[in-house]
């Protein structure tokens, strides 16, 4: 009985620790890699869409004669560059991902070069050629398989990575149920030992065994509550907060694209455009908060091994005390 109790306690600790480590690894991977890369890709897309709109705005308004494509265009290009750098930092896609990112960076440089060429030509008095270059730049962005499609490819890959982490076994209710089942098995063994010893030694209660059972119940409840909360937070982050951020960015992209389209066709468009970094930042806050909740295990990392060791120790102590009495 002593060996069975300690063995099941050890198994409980191994499985619970695996769920804890696996779950935290899934959450951390999504929080530290998948989500920043996804946000970076979506922001880069929005920034480049807005750069296109801003460049057209500057040319159509005549400001290009004095300021070229304008400060807004330059800010957007800087934002796109920063966002792409963040994707490189987290390095999600391996060698293929690095090649794709290199290719996207090269295209951003080419896009910027075309707009600069449009500016130089326009200022030289070749207005028609200036607009032609600007059209080449726009088509490079928006064409099928063009720069924005490549960035969307990165975003989809990163979104899939987040979904895969969210779908990982370690953060499902099944993993928590498996731990609870093991705890129930251990509890049943402890109960059986308690009853068997009470009958055999005519004692009412074995206090260390009782303490082990109560501690196990508490530890399991703590574990289950923590992990159900982690799962809920992860679900809230990936199923609600991330799509909410995406809707915000998508609205900005749609506004920028509509503005650029109108300006290309020489129709009036709103002076202000799509990219609103402050709104994007606000849309990220719930996401950050949800992931904060998902990574907070409330001391379970230390509590789980200590509690399991205490359960095993108390169970062993209870059995050993009775056996010692019997030997006397």
């Amino acid at each position: 009985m002593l060996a069975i109790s300690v063995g099941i306690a050890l198994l409980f600790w191994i499985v619970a620790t695996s769920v804890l480590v696996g779950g935290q690894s899934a959450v951390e991977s999504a929080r530290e890699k998948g989500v920043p890369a996804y946000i970076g890709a979506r922001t880069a897309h929005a920034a480049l869409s807005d750069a296109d709109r801003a460049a057209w705005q500057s040319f159509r308004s005549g400001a290009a004669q004095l300021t070229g494509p304008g400060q807004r265009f330059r800010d957007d290009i800087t934002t796109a560059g920063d966002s792409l750098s963040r994707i490189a930092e987290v390095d999600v896609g391996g060698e293929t991902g690095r090649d794709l990112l290199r290719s996207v960076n090269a295209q951003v440089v080419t896009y910027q070069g075309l707009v600069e060429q449009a500016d130089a030509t326009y200022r030289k008095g070749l207005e028609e050629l200036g607009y032609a270059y600007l059209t080449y730049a726009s088509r490079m962005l928006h064409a099928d398989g063009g720069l924005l499609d490549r960035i969307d490819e990165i975003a989809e890959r990163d979104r899939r990575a987040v979904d895969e982490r969210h779908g990982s076994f370690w953060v499902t209710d099944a993993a928590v149920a498996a731990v609870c089942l093991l705890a129930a098995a251990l509890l049943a063994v402890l109960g059986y030992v308690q009853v068997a010893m009470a009958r055999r030694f005519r004692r009412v209660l074995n206090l260390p065994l009782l303490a082990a059972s109560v501690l196990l119940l508490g530890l399991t409840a703590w574990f289950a509550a923590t992990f159900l909360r982690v799962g809920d937070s992860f679900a809230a982050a990936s199923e609600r907060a991330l799509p909410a951020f995406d809707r915000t960015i998508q609205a900005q992209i749609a506004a920028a694209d509509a503005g650029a389209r109108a300006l290309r066709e020489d129709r009036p468009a709103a002076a202000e455009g799509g990219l609103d970094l402050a709104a994007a930042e606000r849309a990220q806050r719930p996401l950050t908060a949800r992931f904060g909740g998902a990574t907070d295990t409330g001391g379970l990392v230390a509590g789980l091994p200590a509690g399991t060791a205490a359960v095993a120790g108390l169970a062993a102590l209870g059995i050993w005390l009775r056996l010692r009495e019997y030997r006397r």
Partner: protein
Amino acid sequence: MRPSPARALCALVLLCAAALTACGGSGGDRTVTVLGSWTGAEHEAFGAMLAEFERETGIDVKYTGTRDARAVLASELHDGHPPDTAVLANPGDLRAYAADGHLHPVGSASQGIAAGLTTAAGPDGGRRPYGIVLKASVKSLIWYAPDTLPGGLAERLRDPSLTWDDLAAAVSGTADAPWCLGLEDTSQSGWPGTDWIEDLLLHLSGPEVYDDWVAGRLAWTSPEVRRAWEEFGTVVRDAHGGNGGILLTGYGEAGHGMFADPPGCRFDHAGSFIPAFYAQAAGRPEPGRDFDFVPFPGRGTVEIGGDLLGMFRDTPAARRLVAYLTSEEAQRTWIERAGSGAYSLNRDIPPGDYPGDVPRRIAGLLAGAETVRFDASDSMPSVMAAAFNHAVLEYAAEPGDERLDAILTALDKVRRTA
């Protein structure tokens, strides 16, 4: 018998050594990486060539296809991890990489028509073949839709004694704006115009003048180069869609006007790859039936373009791949794919082996050419080539004498510094 700890340790060491040997061997002998710009149908065609190589040799070929292969290659070289081999878009890049010591000579692998195309100076100044031509396209072609031409004109155009002046006069009589012309191509707009000027210079002034110009020995302001630009100016003025139209029309769509009713334009100067674009026009025109070509006037001289392959890591597997890709067997895999638009420089493939009458005649033109020259802008230093592309767009936007003077003077300034 119980295994002793010493025996167990020996076994473990042997296992590790075997594993390490297997891993080490995979780099140079069993695997070869290829970086290229082909995606879609071109990737499939190249994949068919590679599959045969893999089957025959057991060597695994890892191909990475990206439209920005040039930038990815530069980045990988910068990181110190180049691919074993890479497809290069032009001899200019091949020469630059050879001179920098990034490329390894390919020995005798470079053979066939215009074999000297891939010969370049290495870092020690010695000239060696540094690449192979994987596939070529024939550039000096003028396409037309026979049904849209006055009776007898198509036959006159096929007369071997036809000159450029004859052709220009005949073309201008067919419509107000007979030339199909589109200069747009995503990030490299302008090259259809550089092809025009190159063909005009090559055929009007001869290969020696052309070579001097490509090598930077002939001034852009020379009478020969100026005449080629002026002739291109007449094409621009006679082009369908006007100046604004040709700037914003893609090179692949420009010829679709030939198949419209009524036709928007009558003649299109384009390479041997253009039938694949014509096939996307309304009614899905077919070569031979709906459209045909005549060689650029001045028989026996052909300008070609092509994709080259360079070896960045000298491994046994890379050498075997390079040798295989120029073989008759490999080249056939590519050219026999209908609509590939690919032509081989391997003389072992007779023109009669190409699929269809039009490809056979183009292959015959290439095989029978006395003079073959590579696309000039692809052979120039990249700064010169970029300036040339832009200059074409500038001239197309405003094809006047004054503008041409300024453009040629500016290009010559670039020539002196490039």
